[in-house]
């Protein structure tokens, strides 16, 4: 599905938001999928991702103890995508290069600003193969939550993060009841697939708590 597409935001704040999805092609290259997916997470973990995991493994903000190790242990095999989030293009380029060198044969998809992703591909010796662009939101748009709220809620493509919860977190930050970081982590919890960028959410929440939105 398109759960990492349609992330809303300005070019500036999307420049710190790169989602990596890795998957086997069911029926084509499932052999040793479990070990390959574990190895791909071992590579990713070395680069201190903002988030990593899947709905089957848990993610960095739901697991207990040594999170990356727990997530790697929990990899079951071929089904669903295995995901990670990075906040800068340089790190993304390095991860892609190491994945390219590892020759795991898994499909890797990056969600992010296309011009930046192309640079990371070039660094890693790769060429974009296929793209999926969003053409925006249409229909009865009067029903949508406010734009700034959507910049946070659309980081979970399954729609698990409530606009009302974002508003409550902003109000609680304004009252001094919670820090922006803790609020971002609470918002991350319902996003099972590890696509939520806690660093970006923290930054957006700080901004929303000070300015009207």
């Amino acid at each position, binding site marked *: 599905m398109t759960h990492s597409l349609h992330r809303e935001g300005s070019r500036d704040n999307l420049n710190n938001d790169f989602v990596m999805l890795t998957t086997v092609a069911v029926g084509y290259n499932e052999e040793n999928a479990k070990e390959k997916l574990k190895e791909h997470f071992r590579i990713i973990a070395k680069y201190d991702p903002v988030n990593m995991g899947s709905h089957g493994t848990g993610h960095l903000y739901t697991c207990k103890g040594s999170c990356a190790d727990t997530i790697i242990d929990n990899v079951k095999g071929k089904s669903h995508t295995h995901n990670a989030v990075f906040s800068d293009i340089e790190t993304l380029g390095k991860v892609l290069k190491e994945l390219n060198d590892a020759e795991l044969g898994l499909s890797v998809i990056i969600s*992010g600003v296309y011009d930046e992703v192309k640079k990371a591909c070039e660094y890693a010796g790769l060429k974009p193969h296929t793209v999926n662009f*969003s053409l925006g939101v*249409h229909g009865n748009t009067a029903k949508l*939550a406010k734009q700034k709220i959507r910049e946070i809620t659309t980081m979970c493509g399954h729609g*698990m*993060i409530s606009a009302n919860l974002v508003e409550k977190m902003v109000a609680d930050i304004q009252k001094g009841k919670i820090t922006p970081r803790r609020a971002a982590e609470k918002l991350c919890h319902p996003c099972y697939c590890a696509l939520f960028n806690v660093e970006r959410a923290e930054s957006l929440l700080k901004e929303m708590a000070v300015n009207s939105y």
Partner: protein
Amino acid sequence: MKINFEMCIGCENCIPYCPMGAIEVKDEVVFINSDECVECGVCLSSANCPVEAIYQDELEWPRVIRSQFSNPKKPHKSSTKRHGRGTEEMKTNDVTGRFKRGEIGLGIELGRPGVGVRLREFEKFTVAYTKLGLELEKANSAYALIQDPSTGKLPPEILDEKLMSIIVEVKFGPERLQEVLEETKKLAKDLDTVFSISIISKVEDNGFVPILDMVKEAGFKPSVNCKTNVGLGRPLAEEV
């Protein structure tokens, strides 16, 4: 999803967690509006009810559709057996070759972001696209809901079911892009929800994406961010 009234202490902590705003208070009783609830399970998994008063009741047909399309942890037991709302689409295109050079994939995700969708709105798209002669993607779990593939109609008893979102997937050649997007614009006018559009194509060897100019000509603005398959999958699909 239900709240056990006898256990509930009325703290209202769960209310903001519901993505559909379906948890309400009436006469000091907190309850879930079952017509608006899409069975996504967020209240149960994330709201941390201090007395564990929230519970998942048994869902029967057709209500079970809500859970399958709204809760990413629930598989589509009666159709694809997969989790989620779509297919591998372009994610594995380097290996499957599902989208060949010149072919365009279109995904219409109804209800997204954060609004939800009744299946009668989804049916408007399946009927209209079928009338255009487009073939709906059979690997998508949504296809299993269609009662008559020749018309795109759904069974009447499921039309009022509300889901977090559902995706219509089609594929066609570039010569049909303007026509399909024009039809999509018409459908947007009378819709009681929102939808997000995604468009898929292979990248030229020089990094150029020809469909971007074509969608701009049709009056759409592509986002600056997108999903990029970086071509690491093996064995690589060969283009015939």
